[in-house]
């Protein structure tokens, strides 16, 4: 029984067979040479002849990727030497193509090596994955992706908006004549000088809330001017740059997220969810070879044991249980509907609370001191409390509804997502309704098209709200770490109370933490138009969060008892992030197109809406460019383009359905072949029996 590979020193006289199958059992010897035995990784030593049979021409087969051959190094070396000796007849074009492909793969390898070097936190992530599993590692991978995304976008904003603003500060401001529309003098008043007689304590308060000395800085929209530099061979239009940078920032984030989602979705679709074949899947693919250390290994083994036992138990129960009676079904469905309504009602109550808190906070904006700080932070506090309390209640409700375990997790998560995102939307809606006098006294907005008495520079105010939300989120995370998780660990370790030991150490809940990240990122996207340095601050915030979460993971948490499927959840995280992005996009579009910019501050102070800078600059382009752009926007161009894309999409859909059908056909063929084999084996046995030949 040949089970090991034949190694014969170096090079040439090596057999092509590798791992041979058992020859003892009465199996049909496969006579055909083109089809290889299932278990033998055979190597075709004469690829050229096979290709000529197929193609009927002298085109050479490209050399096989040697790395993917499951053979020991010596064999691979021998094969590569043989391949190099076989100089195929190539046309000059093909040899040029071959050499280009080789240099391209070499370049790709060196880039891969370089990226491997500079990959952020690679060793920490490996350690986390080895000790706590794939699910927790996916959270930290997601966090790293957000850090890189924020860093690149802040570079973008710095390069196109911040640095030109600093450079052109010296240029005479307000180089454009402001069109005087009636009683606009009052609208242009903006008192941003901080009160000179002020206590030291208020500097700290100002830092936390973005008011006072921080208000009139590069941090907020109000500081930027609408300079339009136009020299002989160089022109830079700052308002246009500001707008286009904001739009491009959104587009850039969308591209990054969809690229990342694409790879994750491809894996998820190719493996088809994997609901069937769960036992063989658990046994064949369940072991994580990256587990480090005895503790993690024993935990993984306990995990698998638990999983297998539970599955076998469930199967046994399912085989024994009768189906539910009609009365039980009706009861179950009606209770589910009722509980869904209860959860929905809770969420609506939270929204109402946020709305009231925001209005109250905006009305108390003149207060100073700690009480004033409390009023400033009231919306953030209410949102955080709501985000804390309502998901816990929703979890309990979801458990009462008695869905499948995986569906329960998804339902609870969806409810939390909905709550967090739309609570942010409610905050924004209240702010905007106050600014544009959506309700209340409409005469306050008649003069300047916005409420200039309470909001002389409303964009800065919105930016301050977003800045406060971000900062508060970070402070809460750090406070939870210090005040809740460390004490819990100390209590668990030092007390022998039964209840305490039952509760045990903290478990690192991945979905809740990921939602926190998505929420923080959505706040940044919404606020980036009004607070251009917010992505940079967010990068720092996420770096701090990474190290804080890593510390709490290793010191305070125990590994999860239930596994967390990482591939489906990766797609889910990115889809939730995309949902947050689209909410921020709605806010952006509304701000750009509908609301009148402040007349007293900012780069758009002389325009009736932020978008009008684009048509204004459009007319300063040359006539040919204008004509070209008109053509692109016209129906003569867009309708054929649309038809073309529809045709391409139909082609891909047809291709996908054909592939699916051929996969089904091949599976059926495989089953038929197996049946043929069994039939022939039986025939052989009968024949050998009748002929009396002993095998």
């Amino acid at each position: 029984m040949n089970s090991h590979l034949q190694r014969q020193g170096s090079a040439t006289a090596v057999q092509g067979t590798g791992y041979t199958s058992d020859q003892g059992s009465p199996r049909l010897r496969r006579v055909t040479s083109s089809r290889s035995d299932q278990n033998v990784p055979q190597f075709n030593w004469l690829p050229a002849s096979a290709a000529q049979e197929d193609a009927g021409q002298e085109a050479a087969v490209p050399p096989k990727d040697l790395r993917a051959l499951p053979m020991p190094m010596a064999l691979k070396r021998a094969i590569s030497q043989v391949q190099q000796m076989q100089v195929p007849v190539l046309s000059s074009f093909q040899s040029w193509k071959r050499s280009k492909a080789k240099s391209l793969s070499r370049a790709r390898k060196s880039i891969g090596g370089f990226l491997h070097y500079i990959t952020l936190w690679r060793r920490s992530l490996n350690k986390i994955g080895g000790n706590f599993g794939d699910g927790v590692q996916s959270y930290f991978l997601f966090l790293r992706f957000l850090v890189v995304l924020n860093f690149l976008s802040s570079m973008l904003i710095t390069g196109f908006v911040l640095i030109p603003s600093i450079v052109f500060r010296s240029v005479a401001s307000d180089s454009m004549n402001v069109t005087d529309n009636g009683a606009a003098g009052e609208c242009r008043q903006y008192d941003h000088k901080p009160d000179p007689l002020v206590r030291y304590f208020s500097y700290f308060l100002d830092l936390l809330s973005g008011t006072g000395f921080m208000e009139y800085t590069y941090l907020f929209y109000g500081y930027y001017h609408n300079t339009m530099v136009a020299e002989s061979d160089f022109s830079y239009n700052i308002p246009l740059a500001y707008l286009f940078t904001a739009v491009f920032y959104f587009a850039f984030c969308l591209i990054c997220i969809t690229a990342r989602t694409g790879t994750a979705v491809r894996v998820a679709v190719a493996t088809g969810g994997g609901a069937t074949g769960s036992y063989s899947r658990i046994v064949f693919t369940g072991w994580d070879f990256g587990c480090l250390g005895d503790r993690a290994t024993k935990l993984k083994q306990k995990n698998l044991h638990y999983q297998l036992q539970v599955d076998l138990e469930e199967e046994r129960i399912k085989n024994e249980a009768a189906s539910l009676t009609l009365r039980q079904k009706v009861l179950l469905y009606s209770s589910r509907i009722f509980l869904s309504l209860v959860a929905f009602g809770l969420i609506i109550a939270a929204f109402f609370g946020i709305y009231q808190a925001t209005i109250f906070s905006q009305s108390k904006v003149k207060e100073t001191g700690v009480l004033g700080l409390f009023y400033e932070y009231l919306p953030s506090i209410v949102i955080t409390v709501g985000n804390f309390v309502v998901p816990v209640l929703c979890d309990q409700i979801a458990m009462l509804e008695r869905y499948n375990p995986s569906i329960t997790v998804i339902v609870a998560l969806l409810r939390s997502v909905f709550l967090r995102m739309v609570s942010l939307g409610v905050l924004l809606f209240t702010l905007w309704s106050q600014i544009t006098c959506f309700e209340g006294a409409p005469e306050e907005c008649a003069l300047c098209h916005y409420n200039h008495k309470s909001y002389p520079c409303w964009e800065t105010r919105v930016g301050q709200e977003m800045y406060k939300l971000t900062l508060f989120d970070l402070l809460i995370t750090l406070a939870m770490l210090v005040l809740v998780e460390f004490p819990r660990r100390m209590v668990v370790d030092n007390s022998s109370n039964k209840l305490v030991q039952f509760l045990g150490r903290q478990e690192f809940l991945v979905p809740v933490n990921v939602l926190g990240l998505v929420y923080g990122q959505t706040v940044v996207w919404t606020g980036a138009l009004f607070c251009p340095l917010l992505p940079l601050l967010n990068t720092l915030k996420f770096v701090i969060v990474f190290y804080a979460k890593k510390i709490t993971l290793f010191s305070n948490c125990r590994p999860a008892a239930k596994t967390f499927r990482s591939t489906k959840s990766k797609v889910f995280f990115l889809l939730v992030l995309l949902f947050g992005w689209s909410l921020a996009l709605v806010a952006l579009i509304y701000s750009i197109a509908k609301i009148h910019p402040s007349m007293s501050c900012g780069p758009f102070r002389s325009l009736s809406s932020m978008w009008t800078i684009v048509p204004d600059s459009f007319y300063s382009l040359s006539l040919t460019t204008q004509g070209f752009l008109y053509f692109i926007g016209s129906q003569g161009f867009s309708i054929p383009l649309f038809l073309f894309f529809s045709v391409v999409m139909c082609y891909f859909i047809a291709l996908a359905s054909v592939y699916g059908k051929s996969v089904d056909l091949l599976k059926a063929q495989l089953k038929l072949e197996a049946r043929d084999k069994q039939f022939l084996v039986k025939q052989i046995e009968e024949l050998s029996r009748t002929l009396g030949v002993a095998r």
Partner: protein
Amino acid sequence: MGATASHLGKDLLSEYQELTFLTKQEILLAHKRFTELLSREDKNLPDPRAPTEAILTLPELKSNPFRERIVRVFSTSESRDGLTFEDFLDLLSAFSDSATLEIKSHYAFRIFDFDDDGTLDESDLEKLVNCLTGETDDTRLTPDEMKQLIRNILEESDIDKDGTVNLSEFQHVISRSPDFVSSFKIVL
């Protein structure tokens, strides 16, 4: 042909890069870790072979329940004991980040085939499940549970109904699992 204990030649390094899925840094790190495993006399040999006991002291393999099978599968000596540096690189290449699904599933099949007969029969599956759940008595499945589990596995994955799982059936199961590639990974 082999590497001297202290330094890898540049040609050898680029050849290894061609023949494995490892990057240059990974190969150099592997060389460093491998030479630490060798005893002093072995270091001067032209093609040193690290004994199995030394390899099993690596932290990445120390607590892996499949560690002895891994060393046996990748060893090219007649007694299947000990790895040369090239065997070690083959091991790391199959377990690396960029290795293809085919090569990983091929080696996984060989690791799980405890009696080296080319198929996974019931005894192989039983030993596999015991490795997965732990060898001590309180972590094993009961005999009834084991029988039920093996019956379920064969029912799901044995397409040609010959009572064993061969390589293509194994690869078919693997291809439907999205997490296999990321869990079949050992990184130094």
